[in-house]
């Protein structure tokens, strides 16, 4: 992980630009994790580093872009779908129990 970052760190930063090769590698880095890797059993240096990297790289949905629609179960019953709840504006926060 550390090697890949060192190697592609600078390219990744402007990967949304004109270099298709770098963009491809960048996309590969953004591939979603499977359930096992996503739900890590220990918080390690690599997780802290990944948070820092994602912050620098502005991982996430950029301003002005459409927020990906989703429908999730809600506490208290039923589900909640973003596309059906857009007015008034939504403050969507992601957080952990621990």
């Amino acid at each position, binding site marked *: 992980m550390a090697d890949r970052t060192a190697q592609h760190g600078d390219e990744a930063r402007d990967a949304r630009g004109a270099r298709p090769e770098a963009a491809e590698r960048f996309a590969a880095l953004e591939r979603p994790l499977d359930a096992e890797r996503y739900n890590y059993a220990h918080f*390690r240096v690599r997780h802290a580093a990944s948070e820092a990297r994602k912050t620098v790289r502005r991982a996430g949905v950029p301003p002005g*872009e*459409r927020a990906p629609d989703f429908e999730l179960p*809600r506490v208290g019953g039923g589900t909640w779908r973003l596309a059906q709840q857009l007015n008034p504006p939504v*403050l969507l*926060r*992601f*957080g952990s129990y621990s």
Partner: protein
Amino acid sequence: MAHFGARVQMVDVLVRQGHPGPAVPAYEHQTQKLADARRYKEDDGVPWTVLVDDLRGTVHQAYGALADPTYLIDVDGRVAFYNMWTHVPTLFEAVEALLAQGGRGVVRGGVDRRPHFAATLTNGWPALRRGLPQSAADLETSVPLSATGAWLGYQLRPLLAPLTLRERPLSPAAKAALGAAAAVGVLLAARRVLRPAPDLAPEPA
């Protein structure tokens, strides 16, 4: 955010365990996640909507998978503001700006990437505490002094909270006053340190 009443809706999405430990192990089943979300809503008396992401964090990952981000989404379903590390005063200003422009468009530059450590250090401990001792040991090993800092910040909460957990941004006057107070404090401390000890001072003639 109560200030805005029904003019903005708040929605929490419960994601993976950030700091797992014996009592809060990494999720293996969706039911564990649902139970934690229910506990979070009930124990903390959360009045707004709490949603539960799937086991693999599909929605969380689609939104960048940071530890504690908040998105402000406008009435067209576009991102008006992305607060990569949730900070209430910053969001307060963003919501205010969005409502002022009719609920549409990008506000306040669109992104805030600052980690806002002061707020995290003041209110991060209760979540970390759920996974003790592993959660604190793991965090301290990965980011030295951060678990200790969170513990200390929580102890000093009565002192820090009015400043670090405020809902509205500080006014420029309050910022200037705080800066001046800090400068005076530093000066006084420096004078005390630099003043020669009485027994070393030259004898009066």
